[in-house]
């Protein structure tokens, strides 16, 4: 029962999900709502993400029973309780490890990890980077609110330096992680960023992530209106967003700002990226975004454009999406190869080995 039973259920166009059985009937958002009362704080950004995911799932058309949400600990990790699929609310930081075992042993499942900045980048940092490098068929949604919510407001590994919180009354001392840079450095094959309040963009990123074979890493900027309210306001306010947000579209020149007046160019001296005012003289120098580039170098440079304090020049969208061998597929191939080479396991032969003797009664 470990292998996908149903080749006839293949989902065309979604290589990541080709082994996952399709739903028999048309689904709606309601099918993905569980009977559990949602218990996040009123106004929490998690509500918007939940609605977007529940609204997006019918589009995949997968059998609901073959979808699993696995989470760790934290506010975001309550997510599986609200999805009417299989789910596991596990322990702090370990969701990628648990999901790895599930996805590697059950290729007929669509496995999603829901985690937060503390869960994925602090206590679970090791599992995150290793799942990315292995490229297991998992979709990791990291809700980044730059604060610890469930423990009531300590700074997190993505909080800006000098953050004043209950545990850092004089300001935090440690520099934050940039989750996109971290994922790219960990050999991730798919890395994207989106924002909780932008339903359309969030859905488009989910769509791309779902279609990706291997581990897809999606950072979702999420507002914690209790302990870190407005952390991403600069990216959401219509006026400020114009100059703060850089929308990445594969194959398009990277331009933003009022009348697309700004653009990203490569500095010839350093090879690094910088933002310039675009005019006729430099129009052609504006970088064309290539999410499928062979190396992650430019994607990494893009991830460094944002100022960690002001969030100015924050790119959102798919930074990188490349195909490389998927762990669970390789694992299955080895099992098949072993059978080809040695035949199907013969228990009696294995137990006896090569060196036996007989005692006659």
């Amino acid at each position, binding site marked *: 029962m470990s292998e996908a039973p149903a080749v006839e259920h293949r989902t065309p166009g979604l290589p990541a999900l080709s082994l996952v059985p399709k739903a028999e009937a048309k689904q709606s958002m309601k099918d993905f709502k569980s009977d559990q009362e949602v218990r996040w704080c009123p106004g929490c950004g998690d509500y918007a993400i939940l609605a977007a995911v529940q609204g997006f799932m019918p589009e995949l058309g997968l059998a609901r029973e073959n979808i699993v949400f696995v989470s760790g600990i934290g506010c975001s990790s309550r997510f599986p309780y609200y999805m009417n699929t299989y789910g596991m609310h596990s322990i702090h930081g370990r969701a990628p*490890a648990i999901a790895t075992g599930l996805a590697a042993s059950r290729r007929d499942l669509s496995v999603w990890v829901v985690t937060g900045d503390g869960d994925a980048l602090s206590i679970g940092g090791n599992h995150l980077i290793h799942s990315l490098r292995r490229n297991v068929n998992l979709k990791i949604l990291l809700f980044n609110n730059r604060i610890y919510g469930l423990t009531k407001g300590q700074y997190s590994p993505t909080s800006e330096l000098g953050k004043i919180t209950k545990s850092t009354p004089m300001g935090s001392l440690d520099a934050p992680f940039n989750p996109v840079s971290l994922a790219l450095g960990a050999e991730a094959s798919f890395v994207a960023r989106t924002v909780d309040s932008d339903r359309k963009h969030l859905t488009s990123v989910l769509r791309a992530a779902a279609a990706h074979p291997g581990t897809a890493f999606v950072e979702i900027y999420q507002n914690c209106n209790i302990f870190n309210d407005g952390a991403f306001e600069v990216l959401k306010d219509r006026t400020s967003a114009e100059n703060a947000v850089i929308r990445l579209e594969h194959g398009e020149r990277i331009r933003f700002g009022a009348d697309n007046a700004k653009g990203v160019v490569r500095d010839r001296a350093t090879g690094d990226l910088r933002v310039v005012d675009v005019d006729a003289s430099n129009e052609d120098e504006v970088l064309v975004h290539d999410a499928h580039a062979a190396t992650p170098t430019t994607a990494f440079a893009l991830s460094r454009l944002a100022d960690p304090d002001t969030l100015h020049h924050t790119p959102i969208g798919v930074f990188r999406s490349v195909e490389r061998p998927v762990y669970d597929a390789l694992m299955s191939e080895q099992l098949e190869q072993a059978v080809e080479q040695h035949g199907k396991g013969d228990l009696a032969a294995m137990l006896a080995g090569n060196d*036996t003797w007989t005692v006659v009664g």
Partner: protein
Amino acid sequence: MTSQVSSPTTPDRPVLGEQRKPAKETRKLDRVVIRFAGDSGDGMQLTGDRFTSETASFGNDLSTLPNFPAEIRAPAGTLPGVSSFQLHFADHDILTPGDAPNVLVAMNPAALKANIGDLPRGAEVIVNTDEFTSRAMGKVGYAASPLEDGSLSAYAVHPVPLTTLTVEALKEFPLTRKEAERSKNMFALGLLSWMYHRPTEGTEDFLRKKFAKKPELAEANVAAFRAGWNFGETTEDFAVSYEVAPAEAAFPAGTYRNISGNLALSYGLVTASRQADLPLFLGSYPITPASDILHELSRHKNFGVRTFQAEDEIAGIGAALGAAFGGSLAVTTTSGPGVALKSETIGLAVSMELPLLVVDIQRGGPSTGLPTKTEQADLLQAMYGRNGEAPVPIVAPCTPGDCFGAALEAARIALTYRTPVLLLSDGYLANGSEPWRVPELDELPDLRVQFATTPNHVAEDGTEEFWPYLREPETLARPWAVPGTPGLEHRIGGIEKQDGTGHISYDPANHDLMVRTRQAKIDGIEVPDVVVDDPDGQARTLVIGWGSTYGPITAAVRRIRGAGGAVAQAHLRHLNPFPRNLGEVLGRYQKVVVPEMNLGQLAHLLRARYLVDARSHTQVTGLPFKAEQLAAAIQEESADV
């Protein structure tokens, strides 16, 4: 008995040891203990393994004790770098690797110095004189050569220039001197094979296979091995050779092989997967002395075995738990420090009530402790080492071969009761080996389980629902509904769940009920009664142990009985829950003695649970008990009965 032991050799293969009968005097012995000792780079473990295989195929009963440093190549010629392999073989059934060697093979001064203290007077010592240079002797504190200063006069010393003889024997081979020297362990093996009439063709086959890609090295090693054999035959220093007849009466009829604990455990896991009709998933992080299970299972992918070498101990068990949720027979393997890291996930498995095997190959602790030495000091960690009330069944094998059955038993409990199970082996069982009767497939237990496939509850409005925590009344096990099953979508986790529905619940009465129910489930696990060995019913003292002390305790009890004493013996394979008759058994005896390789952990549990005055006899040397010392200790404890 009319049983007869036949050699495993195919009829047309000649047996060197029989073909070339030694011309010298032959003496018959009923048992021998040999210890090979050398530098950790000298190949002593391989030498011991080969002698063991020869001995197993000859039909002796045997028991082995490899003993090596944690360092891969400790500084050459030093005491910490000494690696040894002890083998006890006999014409009758034996239980331990032997208290003291009758023969020591010492490849250098360090090996002699580190081991001579364990030898009884009169023991034979074969030393490689080539290595007794003043520098090498100085390194281990010999001011004068022990071969010349009379300090070894209590022993029968055979000085043999092993290195020179090996190099001389290989002079026709295109090898450097250094390369030729490396075959000296095979020379020593040949000599010992001559001394004890071991069949030799198995070793020659082995060498040709091992060096298949370098035929000249294969032939050089075979030549060194034969030169050692011939040296014994021709030199005057070795006037006598010994016969230890096959242990005809020791074994019931059947097909036998030699097996180590870790190999038996690996086979047990593959077999459990086959008998349960579930794919095996191993999530593991390398750790001594458990890594060999990861290695072995990785070789059996054609059984559908998935092995996952994780980034750490926590990911190892995490991945296993994820696979268990998906319907695999899931296993994680480790040693004590790894169990500490896995504790939180074991607790999650207790809360989610999923089957999971946690294999702990115990080693000396605390902390890093003694990675390559044995101890059984993780019992209380297995029993209690989690936050909250988190009961976990515990199964402990008692011999290397029993690791096979213990793995099947642990799988039975995990699958039947949907619970993590701790399997406590140890370094002594893991690396030690013994003859093992290969089971017939139809003797193996049926471990098949039924996944939940349909709703199990009807709501008030008549709709059918699936309640993940609605239990089977007999076992209290909850249904195992795996993803992919339509209509049974459910969410589980580590937060307390409402009885039945499995929804999050913070209700005080519900938590009290759930804690007690989880405990009742484990307490109610069916385990076999403990069997007491009390031949004449006269004993007033009961000796009770668990795990790998079975061999030494049984050997000690035999000694006491042999000397006219009466002592009863029982051995626990199930530590949680204890067998139902255990309290009654303990109550029958005036004294209860509990030998353990820890500071009294089982004794602690027995005292707490049954209010008996259990007396501990403990040893934490990193080595198994010696039967003679243990017999004395048991007699002392029971003296005033």
